[in-house]
């Protein structure tokens, strides 16, 4: 019977039939009005994009927010230093001793050319030059009373040359040293000592690399003291090249390395101090790198990827916004609801509390808390939590005022009288019948408040008192502009973060505005 009726109805429907017109529920009406608002849709799209960017992007990007990137750079670095040896170095023959003032006497002898001297402690000595500033020292021993009764005994050699054994811990004998000095002075290519024959690869008479009979490097002799700058090892062959370079007045030296690459060394002479520099690959932190394939937004002052930091910073900004607003809505609805419903003294008291909290200046308060947390070096996560709580505890008063005002007017309406007449409990009347009617205003206020909270958090982080390094926040990324150099030359560091803040807050405001219009059809005329 009923089915028949329905069929009949459909058949008989006319164009102006009321049943033909689709009836929308109030919620659907609001949604329809909302989706007709282009700005609100734009806001929704931006917010969805921001969420995808921050949460999904943060999960997809291979970098983490605090990963430091390095780059290599060719830098001219000090490699080795060389100084001419200006002190005579002596070698004592086995079983002999040199007089204590041998050094000063040798210097005098070297400059005056008078090779015979008497030591202060007594005893006559003679120097025999075998090359430029290379001397053999003889002791004149008296064998009889007559002045002629003297025999000379060789007790050592002195030269402006130093010996470096090719293998560490290896002892070089006196005879070897003397032989080497003689050979270098005479520019000979080979020598013999202790019954072994050596070959010399000499660099003029300034130094030589001595090979033993098997052709292995045995010792290095030079009139230069050559030291590596940063603890690396200098091969005797390199030292020999260096001495030749200095002697020939060359300024650059190209050496083929074992792996086939060529390294160029540059020699600088600073008043007899020689400095060898070379181009070296050095690893440095990649700060303020311009946008590239690896770092789409470049890197910041700590060499961290800006794209990753923008994503993680977005998470924190959005999260703080929602957490703070959630707390504010809970506190504000409860207090505003109670005040509005009961009215009278309760209302008066609670609203004065709201007034008092409204008067507390929030920014200075946040700043003080921030600097106290700085003092105690609070961990970054603790800062975030505390920041949320404090912002919510200060910020709920706006919501309480709205809820109270709304409830005050709703309270007088007929449906509330009906709830009272049917004996519904107070708790149910407030939270089932009154609060749902306040929700439109709450949603509008919350979506606009979200923008405010994000703005406040960004401001605090910008001042360096909100989210702290290494955790990222959009505000703290812009903080870099406090360095004028960054502001001038590295636009890519601070501009995206600022645009992100602006876009997000703007989007929340667009949504709030659209919701306000959608909930309030009276304004649409």
């Amino acid at each position, binding site marked *: 019977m009923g089915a028949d009726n329905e069929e009949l109805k459909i058949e008989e429907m006319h164009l102006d039939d009321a049943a033909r017109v689709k009836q929308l529920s109030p919620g659907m009406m609001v949604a329809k009005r909302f989706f007709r608002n282009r*700005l609100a849709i734009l806001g929704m799209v931006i917010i969805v994009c921001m969420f995808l960017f921050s949460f999904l992007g943060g999960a997809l990007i291979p970098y983490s927010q605090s990963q430091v990137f390095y780059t290599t750079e060719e830098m001219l670095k000090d490699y080795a230093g060389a100084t001419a040896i200006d002190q005579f170095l002596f070698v004592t023959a086995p079983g002999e001793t040199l007089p204590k003032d041998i050094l000063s006497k040798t210097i005098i002898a070297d400059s005056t050319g008078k090779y015979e001297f008497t030591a202060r402690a007594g005893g006559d000595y003679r120097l025999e030059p075998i090359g430029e500033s290379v001397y053999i020292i003889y002791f004149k021993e008296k064998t009889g009373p007559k002045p002629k009764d003297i025999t000379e005994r060789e007790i050592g050699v002195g030269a402006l040359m130093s010996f470096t054994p090719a293998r560490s811990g290896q002892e070089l004998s006196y005879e070897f040293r003397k032989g080497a000095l003689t050979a270098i002075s005479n520019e000979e290519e080979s020598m013999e000592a202790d019954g072994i024959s050596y070959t010399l690869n000499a660099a003029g008479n300034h130094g030589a690399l001595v090979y033993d009979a098997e052709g292995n490097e045995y010792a290095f002799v030079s009139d230069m003291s050559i030291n590596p700058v940063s603890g690396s090892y200098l091969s005797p062959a390199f030292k020999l090249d260096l001495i030749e370079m200095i002697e020939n007045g060359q300024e650059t030296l190209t050496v083929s390395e074992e792996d086939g690459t060529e390294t160029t060394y540059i020699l600088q002479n600073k008043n007899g101090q020689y400095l060898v520099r070379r181009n070296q690959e050095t690893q440095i932190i990649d700060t303020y790198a311009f946008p590239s394939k690896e770092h789409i937004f470049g890197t910041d002052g700590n060499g961290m990827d800006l794209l990753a930091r923008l994503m993680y910073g977005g998470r924190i900004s959005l999260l703080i916004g929602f957490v703070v607003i959630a707390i504010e809505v809970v506190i504000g609805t409860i207090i505003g609801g109670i005040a509005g419903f009961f009215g009278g003294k309760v209302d008066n008291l609670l609203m*004065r509390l709201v*007034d*008092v909290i*409204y*008067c*507390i*200046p929030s*920014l*200075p*308060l946040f*700043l*003080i808390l921030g*600097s*106290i947390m700085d*003092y*105690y070096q609070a961990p970054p996560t603790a800062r975030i939590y505390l920041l949320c709580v404090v912002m919510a505890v200060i910020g709920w008063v706006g919501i309480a005022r709205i809820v109270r005002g709304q409830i005050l007017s709703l309270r007088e309406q007929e449906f509330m009288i009906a709830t009272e007449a049917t004996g519904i409990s107070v708790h149910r009347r407030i939270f089932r019948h009154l609060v749902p009617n306040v929700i439109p205003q709450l949603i509008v206020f919350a979506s606009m408040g979200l*923008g405010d909270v994000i*703005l406040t958090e*960004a*401001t605090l982080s*910008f*001042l360096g008192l909100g989210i702290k390094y290494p955790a990222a926040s959009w*505000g703290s990324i*812009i903080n870099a*502009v406090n360095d*004028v150099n960054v*502001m*001038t030359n590295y*636009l890519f560091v*601070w501009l995206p973060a*600022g645009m992100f*803040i*602006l876009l997000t*807050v*703007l989007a929340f*405001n*667009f949504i709030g*505005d659209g919701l306000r219009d959608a909930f309030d059809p009276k*304004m649409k*005329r």
Partner: protein
Amino acid sequence: MKKFILKRLLISVVLLFFVSLIIYTIMRCMPTSYVENQARALATRPGAKSYQEWVAQLNAQYGLDVGVLRGYFRWVARAVRLDFGDSWFWNQPILDKFKDVIWYSFALGLASFILENVIAIPLGIAAARKQYSFTDYTVTVVALIGISLPSFFFATILKYIFSIKLGWFDLSGTVSRMHQSMTPFQQYLDIGKHMILPVITVTVVSIGGMMRYVRTNMLEVLNSDYIRTARAKGLPESRVINHHAFRNTLIPIVTLLGGSLPALFSGAMITEQLFQIPGIGYTSYVSIMQGDIPFVMFYMVFLAVLTLLGNLIADILYAAVDPRVRVG
């Protein structure tokens, strides 16, 4: 009316009592080690008082050696005589420092207040007159952008364009390098020139709220019955808008403007800090960073007083301007 004002005044005083009590309690809740450490650090600055003197003064001023309530009354007893003690960081009586810096903030606040209203009120009215027109959308979007702009970001952009790229203004400060050798008139111009960017920043950041407020109220007025009547009896549109509608919109606008007058003294902390303008906002920012508790305490109470004063003025104006509001 007198009774109304008196009642509001009394409520404000009671509120101020509680607000300052809360601020005092927050200050008392600061970890002692922090307070002592700051006092000690500041005592090492050249020309500063010794640590013992600071502690003695703290106890005398804030009653740190007695309980919260007794200490609070000790502070109030001095504060009502406008004795706020000496600043730790600035090394002079707080009120002296306040008098030195407040006029920078006031000048900045007043200039941007005038500019803001001169731009926002006509635009808000224009938007409301042609609701859902291109003008309306533009005004709405501009207003929302103004609300959403972080002041530090906008100031940075201004600095980047006008100071760095164009070189028209100095990056920060209130005087240029040649300030001393200028005639007094040139000096005024010089300071004024340095205030341009900060004024623009404050104006743009705060203009959105005013625009929307004017637009909403104008819309409400335009939708009311007496406007329909005015139109029905054949008045020209200009007279309807300028005579009937605008005058009625003035009621909420005047209330809001009156209420925001005290805020002209509150200083723009972020903007002043970014442009290094030595106003009350910048001074307080430095004080907070340096842990100068006496000054911070003074500034917070000062801001609370300004807020209360603003509410009071708004309430009284609302009752005075609109004859429909019955004073009870």
